[in-house]
């Protein structure tokens, strides 16, 4: 008996750590291939966003014949979770694990929620639409199940993105952060574009069986890609594991973060700018169609052009910041490009020029790329090492909420103007206040950002040299900040 036991234990011990999902040592140098692999989690986030906001939005309304307002409410549910991103980030900062991990457990849980939401979503939608025998089922079953599915996916996306970005910030030294931010944004866009094409092709001939296959397939892809992304990324930190449980309350941590010079101002800039750029996302296509009589394929191309502009913006921002540019300056230039872009969008209606609208769209995308990259890099740079999760959670909460609110407001203003008497005569009329508001919001963001341009933002270097606060996460051995 004991011989077998010794044999088994010997075999077990010989398997060695290469099969364990966490890295045993923190390497100072993180190769690009590893960062690319890490950024895969952004692809699943992009996939979930496209599936919920784009594809399902259409399928539920057109094929399943569920009322559009009900669908809009369902899709808005995940937005309710957005403010909790700050809390999630804080929790992952202070998470006490015997294994010395703090990001991995959260990403695991977030991935599980996302998977679970996708797993029940097709059936929930079929029951909601009264498929088969579900016509006789009580209404609340379909409603509750669909709401639960969307909430689970939304919560999963919020958790994975917040904690994933925090992990990426943990891993790389400060001078490489612009590269990582660019990579993350690009992968998000790539994930959205690839999955939009894939869903379009897969759901061309709709059937309930196909819907189940596609959504549950997304669930499996989510698990696989997130698993690949997280494998061996986070190092075990024995010092953190053995440190006593920190007693930091969320309110205290938040107060400490908010007290940092420029932090609240930065968040305000992010809210204003994201809202400014975000309104265009949903309105450019109907604007092109209704005002400039563009065809469906042409307006779809508008969205592609917007994405292309963003890609160019991310690329340029990465190079610029990599050469030592100020992140807030990059963001300000992005907002400054956005203001004339939206005025040109309005001018294109007056002149009836499609070419001008395309040019303006490219400009808006470019500005959005610069602005998004600059503000996220600024957030990463200004976050204290032990509050990275909280800072990025605050970034995500502000950014997601602002984008969602902006889309809702844009839709409401346009519909209200459409309903107003006499508005129908002038095609561009309903859109004028929305695009003007966008330009105004961006101009306001520029004004608020003014004092931040010249580095009036607490950076991590200041922390290291000026005030050595005791870190809540125990002694840091992962990556020592460059002093």
């Amino acid at each position, binding site marked *: 008996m004991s011989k077998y036991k010794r044999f088994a234990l010997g075999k077990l011990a010989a398997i060695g750590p290469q099969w364990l999902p966490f890295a045993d040592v923190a390497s100072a140098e993180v190769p690009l291939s590893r960062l690319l692999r890490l950024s895969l989690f952004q692809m699943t986030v992009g996939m979930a966003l496209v599936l919920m906001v784009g594809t399902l939005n259409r399928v539920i309304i057109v094929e399943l014949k569920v009322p559009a307002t009900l669908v809009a409410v369902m899709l808005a549910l995940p937005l309710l979770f957005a403010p909790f991103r700050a809390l999630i980030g804080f929790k992952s900062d202070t998470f006490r694990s015997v294994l010395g991990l703090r990001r991995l457990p959260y990403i695991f849980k977030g991935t*599980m929620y996302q998977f679970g939401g996708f797993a*029940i979503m097709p*059936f929930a939608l079929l029951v909601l639409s009264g498929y088969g025998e579900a016509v006789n089922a009580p209404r609340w079953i379909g409603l509750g199940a669909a709401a639960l599915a969307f909430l689970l996916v939304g919560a999963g996306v919020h958790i994975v993105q917040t904690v994933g970005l925090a992990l990426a910030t943990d891993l790389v030294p400060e001078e490489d952060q612009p590269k990582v931010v660019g990579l993350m944004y690009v992968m998000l866009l790539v994930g959205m574009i690839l999955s939009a094409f894939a869903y379009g092709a897969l759901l061309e001939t709709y059937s309930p069986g196909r819907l189940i296959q596609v959504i549950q397939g997304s669930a499996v892809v989510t698990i696989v890609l997130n698993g690949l992304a997280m494998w061996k990324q986070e190092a075990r930190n024995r010092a953190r594991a053995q440190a006593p449980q920190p007693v930091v309350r969320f309110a205290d941590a938040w107060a400490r973060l908010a007290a940092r010079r420029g932090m609240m101002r930065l968040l305000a800039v992010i809210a204003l700018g994201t809202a400014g750029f975000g309104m265009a996302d949903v309105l450019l296509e109907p604007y092109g169609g209704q005002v400039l009589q563009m065809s469906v394929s042409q307006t779809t191309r508008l969205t592609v052009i917007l994405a292309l502009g963003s890609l160019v913006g991310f690329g340029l921002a990465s190079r610029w910041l990599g050469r030592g540019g100020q992140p807030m300056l990059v963001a300000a230039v992005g907002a400054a490009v956005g203001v004339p872009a939206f005025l040109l969008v309005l001018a294109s209606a007056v002149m009836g020029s499609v070419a001008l609208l395309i040019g303006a769209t490219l400009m808006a995308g470019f500005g959005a790329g610069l602005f998004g990259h600059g503000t996220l890099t600024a957030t990463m740079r200004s976050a204290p090492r032990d509050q990275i999760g909280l800072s990025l959670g605050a970034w995500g909460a502000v950014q997601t909420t602002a984008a969602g609110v902006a889309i809702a407001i844009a839709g409401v203003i346009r519909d209200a103007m459409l309903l107003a008497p006499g508005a129908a005569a002038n095609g561009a009329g309903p859109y004028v206040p929305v695009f003007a508001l966008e330009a105004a919001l961006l101009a306001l963001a520029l004004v608020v950002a003014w004092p931040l341009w010249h580095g009036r933002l607490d950076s991590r270097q200041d922390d290291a040299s000026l005030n050595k606060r005791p870190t809540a996460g125990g002694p840091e051995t992962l990556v020592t900040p460059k002093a």
Partner: protein
Amino acid sequence: MSNDPDKVWPTGLTLREAEEVHSYLIDGTRVFGVIALIAHVLVAVSTPWLG
């Protein structure tokens, strides 16, 4: 069973570390169990397979 919390067992984990790994397994099983249950109920509502 040793009471030494720092003893590393042949798996490379101490007792408390192993318990934490196990807790993730249990959590995952519970969540997936609940998800599977809900999915089955929903399928049964739309296409009943029992009677």
